[in-house]
């Protein structure tokens, strides 16, 4: 198996390999689910390219296929048409090379494993030696501010802390790509704001490529370099909004005219696509 190698952080310009292809390429992808009520077109003719060090949010109403698109990229669903590449190879190959870390809607921690053992799970599966596992667990728990909670069990933590453990778990084997499916959707707004700050900080420091599914406009605009607005039935891309906000972001940013203008464009996109017809 491929043991992931810890890569030194380096600026984008020196990374020659990355310049040749986007980290994620989605080309004419459609996916139709066969259900008892007939076929459901979850995705229709979706094109998207995501470059290295980007933070791209997929936003849209329930049923717009944003989670499905993320699952297609992760090789958890198979498209019925079109081509997807991750790091230049098909998703299945990228998955076998452990190219991405996936964060689910709920923390999905194993209840019989302590916090440290949960973070170590992918490392055990990838066959890393014990000493390196311990070192990586400590480093990644520190990254999500959970040092000192190693021996706790999931039920002893709050929902926000559990989700931070699951982020540490996704980062533990140091993938360049992070796929996040509404990771903060179940949390209250205050916790969510704090985690948004921490996630932004984490992305800024580690320079991972992140694909982030959400249905919160402020969250999407605050975190992203680009926001992909999707519409439902069939799921397709309606608009792509660039967020050229300063790299250093604080929660106050959300009160500025620049922020509000971008948020407005995202909202207009959602409304124009009839995404939220009551």
């Amino acid at each position, binding site marked *: *198996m491929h043991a992931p190698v810890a890569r030194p952080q380096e600026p984008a310009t020196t990374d020659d390999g990355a310049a040749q292809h986007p980290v994620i390429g989605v080309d004419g992808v459609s996916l139709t689910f066969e259900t008892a009520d007939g076929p459901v077109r979850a995705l229709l003719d979706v094109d998207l390219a995501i470059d290295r060090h980007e933070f791209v949010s997929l936003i849209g109403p329930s049923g717009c296929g944003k989670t499905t698109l993320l699952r297609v990229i992760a090789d958890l669903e198979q498209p019925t048409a079109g081509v997807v590449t991750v790091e230049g190879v098909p998703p299945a190959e990228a998955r076998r090379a*452990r190219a*991405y870390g*996936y964060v689910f809607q709920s923390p999905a921690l*194993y209840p*019989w494993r*302590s916090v440290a053992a949960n973070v170590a*799970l992918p490392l055990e599966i990838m066959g890393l030696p014990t000493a390196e596992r311990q070192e990586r667990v400590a480093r990644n728990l520190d990254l999500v501010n959970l040092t000192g909670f190693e021996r706790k069990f999931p039920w002893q933590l709050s929902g926000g802390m559990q989700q931070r453990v699951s982020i540490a778990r996704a980062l533990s084997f140091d993938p360049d790509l992070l796929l996040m499916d509404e990771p903060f959707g179940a949390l209250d707004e205050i916790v969510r704001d704090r985690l948004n700050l921490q996630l932004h900080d984490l992305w800024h420091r580690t320079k991972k490529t992140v694909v982030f599914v959400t249905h919160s406009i402020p969250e999407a605009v605050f975190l992203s370099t680009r926001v992909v607005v999707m519409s439902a039935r069939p799921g397709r891309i309606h608009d792509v909004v660039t967020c050229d906000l300063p790299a250093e972001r604080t929660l106050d940013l959300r009160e500025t005219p620049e922020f509000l203008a971008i948020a407005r464009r995202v909202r207009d996109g959602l409304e124009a696509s009839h995404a939220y017809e009551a």
Partner: protein
Amino acid sequence: MIGRIAYLVMPVATVLLAIAVLWYSGALWLNHPFQLDTYERADSEWTAGQLVVDSLNQDRPVLPAPHQVLGELQRTVLEVSPTSRRSLVYHAWVTLSATLLGFALGTAFGIAIATAIVHVPSLDKSLMPWIVASQTIPILAIAPMVVVVLGAVGLTGLVPKSLIAAYLAFFPIAVGVVKGLRSPEVMHLDLMHTYDATRTQVFWKLRWPSAVPFLFPAMRVAVAIALVGAIVAELPTGASAGLGARLLSGSYFGQTLQIWSALVVAAILAGVLVSIVGGANRLTLQAMGMRR
């Protein structure tokens, strides 16, 4: 403090008292005709009080009174050496050893078959009906055949009995573990998929730990019916030792006291075995960090 103790003791004491009252009245009602008959044949005078006392202290009562069973237990448990063939401890051990071996075999077989069913889809359809059917056959019909067949190949005593116990015990284990191995959430399985985990890794790191909370309740049922299996296996085979043998010889010779004291020992044994499995369950889940 006294209130607390009373709160704990009162319900238990009330139930025990109710059982004692019912038992004594039942014994009186069932045993007094024979007593009246005895008086009549002996042509002796009797009073109501005498009838009650005599009915509750017959040598071979239809239904022995509780104090008679306790007396018999004292004679056969405390007053004889545990190695003597007259000791109930000796007979209980004979049955217990078959129960434990059968329980261990049944648990191992149940887990193995559940693992196979979960991993090979065709086995679910092809094997499950046979497993269910196996439990619809009365164990009394199978026990003699198993004993005869195994006796023909030279296996007697402990092994045939424990195989019959295992035959009963594997069923709840297999059903419970199949359910447990299938209990992981889709998200937990998807997570393993994103790590490109092998089936063996998914089994040991996800399916098996998920099945543990299902395994123990199944083991509680299994250990109790393994005891039933071991006792039943002693009945049709003319076994010379074991609780089943005591029940059988008791009924041959009308020794109701012997039957009832063997029954009480079997019940105590079952209670202890189930409690031990319950304790192991608590300790295991605690060690796994699971909330109770």
